[in-house]
C-alpha cells in the first residue's frame, strides 16, 4: 500500500473481556502489532508510554477501575485525542451513549456483534485517514521548521555583515532581537492596549535585526571613533536612522510586506524619545509606533551592557538603574514596567545567546504555537522524546521516588522502577481511594499535602512536606518535595515531585 508506514502499526485493544480482545485481535489479522489492556487505567498507562505511536485504539465502555469514558476524558485533557483515533466498541448502542462518545472525540463506533470484514475495513480506513493527516501535518511543520531555520540563518549572516564594520560580532543584533521578544511577551501579559498577536511578536523580533542597517552609510572614522563625536560627526551618525528607512523604502516590490513596514518603523524611529526630544522626526508619546519604542529600549539596554569603542560595559543592575532614572533616554512608563518585570529573563540574554540550539528551539516553538492544528511534527517529537528520555533516566537512577499527579482526572503516576519497589501500580487512579497507597502513606497526610499544594501559586509553586510512610512494615520518615503545575488559565492542574526516605522513625 503506497503512502502507509513501512513498519507495523500499533493497535491498542481495551476491553475487560479476554474473549473479546482475542476475537478482535484475530479479526485484525497479522498486519498490526496488537497491544492489550484490560481496563481504562492500564490503557492510559500504555498511552502515556507510547503516545502518538499508537495508530488506533479500540475501546470498550464498560470496564472496572476506569471505564471507556474515563479513558476518553484523559485522552482529551492530554490532547492525545487529536492524534490518535479511537473506535469505540460496545454492546451499548443507545443514542445517548453514542452521542456521549462522539462528543468525547471518538472517530467511529462499532457495535456488537463483530463482523470480521467490517471491523477490518473500518480499522484500516481509520488508520489510513489519520496516517495521511499526520503525514501532511508533519510535512507542513517540517517546512515551517526549515523556513525558520533558513530565516534565522539569514538574520545571523546579516547581523554579522552589519556589525562587521563596527568591529563587533553579530551579538548586538541577536541580543536586541531576544530583548525585543522578551519585552513584547511581557507587554502582552500586562496589557491588551497594543493588540499584539503571537505572529506580531515574531515579526517585530525579526524586523528588529534591521534596526541599524543605516549604519552602512556612516563612514568608518566616525563609526569607530573612540573619543567624543563633533557636532557634525554626530549629525552624520544620527542620520543612520533615516538612511536605513530610505533603504527600505527603495524596495519598491516589497512595500506591502508587513516585515518591511515594521522594519521601516523601527529603522526610522528607534532613536525617538517618549517626551518628543528624540530624532529624526521628534515624535512624541504614542505617535511612536510600539515596535520602535520597544526596539529603542532593547537597543539602549544592550548598548549599556556591552563594551563599545567609547565605553566599558555596565552591569545589569547599573544599566537597569540608569534606564529607570531617565539617564539614558525617555521611555513609555508601561515599557519601563515591562523592563522591571522581565528583569531576570533580560539578564540571562547575554549568556543565552551563545546557545544557538536554545534560540532555535524557542523560535521554532513560537512559530509552531501560532498554528493550533499543528500538534506535533517530527522535529518537535524528537525534542519531546529527548526530554522524556532525560526525565526517565534521571528518575531511574535516583534513589528517591519520582511522581506526577494530575487533578483531573485524579491520578498519580510513578516511574516503573519506583512503583516496583513499593508494589504499587505505575498508574494509580483516584489515589485517595487506593488501598495500597493509603497503606503506605495515611489518607490524612495525603490530604494535608494536597491542601499545601492547592495553596501554592504559579510564582511560588514549591512545597516541602515531612510525613511518615510504612515501608516493609517499618515506619520511615520521608520528605516530599513537590511543585504545583498550572495550566494556561492559571488554574491548579497537578504537581510533580519526589519523595526521599530519611530513615526509620
Amino acid at each position: 500500500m503506497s503512502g502507509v508506514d513501512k513498519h507495523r502499526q500499533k493497535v491498542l485493544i481495551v476491553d475487560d473481556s479476554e474473549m473479546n480482545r482475542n476475537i478482535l485481535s484475530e479479526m485484525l489479522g497479522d498486519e498490526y502489532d496488537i497491544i492489550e489492556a484490560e481496563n481504562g487505567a492500564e490503557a492510559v498507562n500504555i498511552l502515556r508510554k507510547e503516545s502518538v505511536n499508537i495508530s488506533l485504539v479500540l475501546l470498550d465502555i464498560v470496564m472496572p477501575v476506569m471505564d471507556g469514558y474515563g479513558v476518553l476524558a484523559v485522552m482529551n485533557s492530554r490532547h492525545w485525542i487529536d492524534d490518535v483515533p479511537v473506535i469505540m466498541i460496545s454492546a451499548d448502542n443507545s443514542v445517548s451513549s453514542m452521542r456521549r462518545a462522539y462528543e468525547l472525540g471518538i472517530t467511529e463506533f462499532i457495535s456488537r456483534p463483530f463482523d470480521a470484514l467490517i471491523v477490518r475495513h473500518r480499522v484500516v480506513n481509520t488508520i489510513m485517514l489519520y496516517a495521511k493527516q499526520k503525514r501532511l501535518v508533519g510535512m507542513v511543520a517540517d517546512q515551517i521548521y526549515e523556513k525558520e531555520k533558513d530565516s534565522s540563518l539569514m538574520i545571523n549572516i546579516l547581523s554579522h555583515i552589519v556589525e562587521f564594520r563596527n568591529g563587533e560580532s553579530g551579538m548586538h543584533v541577536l541580543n536586541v532581537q531576544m530583548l525585543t521578544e522578551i519585552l513584547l511577551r511581557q507587554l502582552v501579559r500586562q496589557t491588551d492596549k497594543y493588540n499584539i498577536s503571537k505572529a506580531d511578536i515574531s515579526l517585530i523580533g525579526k524586523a528588529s535585526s534591521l534596526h541599524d542597517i543605516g549604519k552602512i552609510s556612516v563612514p568608518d572614522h566616525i563609526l569607530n571613533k573612540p573619543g567624543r563625536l563633533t557636532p557634525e560627526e554626530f549629525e552624520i551618525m544620527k542620520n543612520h536612522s533615516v538612511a536605513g528607512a530610505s533603504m527600505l523604502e527603495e524596495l519598491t516590490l516589497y512595500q506591502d510586506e508587513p516585515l518591511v513596514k515594521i522594519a521601516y518603523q523601527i529603522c526610522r524611529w528607534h532613536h525617538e524619545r517618549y517626551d518628543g526630544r528624540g530624532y529624526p522626526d521628534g515624535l512624541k508619546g504614542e505617535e511612536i509606533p510600539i515596535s520602535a519604542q520597544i526596539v529603542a529600549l532593547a537597543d539602549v539596554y544592550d548598548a549599556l551592557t556591552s563594551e563599545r569603542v567609547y565605553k566599558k560595559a555596565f552591569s545589569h543592575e547599573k544599566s537597569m538603574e540608569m534606564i529607570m532614572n531617565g539617564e539614558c533616554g525617555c521611555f513609555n512608563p508601561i515599557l519601563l514596567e515591562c523592563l522591571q518585570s522581565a528583569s531576570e529573563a533580560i539578564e540571562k540574554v547575554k549568556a543565552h545567546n551563545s546557545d544557538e540550539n536554545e534560540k532555535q528551539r524557542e523560535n521554532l516553538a513560537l512559530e509552531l504555537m501560532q498554528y493550533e492544528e499543528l500538534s506535533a511534527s517530527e522535529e518537535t517529537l524528537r525534542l519531546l522524546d529527548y526530554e522524556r528520555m532525560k526525565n526517565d533516566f534521571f528518575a531511574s537512577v535516583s534513589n528517591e521516588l519520582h511522581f506526577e499527579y494530575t487533578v483531573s482526572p485524579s491520578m498519580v503516576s510513578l516511574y516503573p522502577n519506583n512503583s516496583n519497589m513499593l508494589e504499587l501500580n505505575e498508574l494509580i487512579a483516584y489515589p485517595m481511594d487506593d488501598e495500597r497507597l493509603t497503606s503506605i502513606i495515611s489518607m490524612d497526610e495525603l490530604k494535608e499535602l494536597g491542601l499545601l499544594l492547592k495553596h501554592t501559586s504559579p510564582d511560588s509553586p514549591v512545597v516541602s512536606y515531612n510525613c511518615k510512610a510504612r515501608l516493609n512494615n517499618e515506619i520511615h520518615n520521608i520528605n516530599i518535595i513537590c511543585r504545583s503545575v498550572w495550566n494556561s488559565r492559571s488554574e491548579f492542574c497537578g504537581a510533580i515531585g519526589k519523595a526521599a526516605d530519611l530513615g526509620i522513625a
Partner: protein
Amino acid sequence: MTLKECYAALEGDYESVLSRLMTEKLVQKFALKFLDDASFNNLVKNMSESKWDDAFRDAHTLKGVCQNLSFTKLFSSSSTMTEALRDGNTEEAAKILSQVKADYEQTVSAIRELAV
C-alpha cells in the same frame, strides 16, 4: 459432534456467527475458548456476595461474548440479567439468575461435546 450440531444443541445461530467470523476454524476456536471464560463464574460469585456493580459488569461482559459468538439463548437471559442489574433490580436479577445458570449449562455441555 460437528460445529453445526453443537450450535443446534445450545440453541445458537450458526449461520450468523459463521458469516461474521468467516471461518469454521475461528468459530470453533472461540467456542472452545468460551469454556475458560470467567464471566459467568464471576457473575455467580458476585451475585452471592451482593456485589451488584461487579455483577452488572460480569453480566454485561457475558452478554457481549454471547452476542459475538451468537449463543442466542444464553445471550437472551444474560441480556435480561444485565438490564435488571443496570436498573438496580436485584430481586429480579436473583430470579433471572437460575435461567442464566440453566442456559449456561446447556451451552457449555454442548461445547464440551465439540471438544471430543
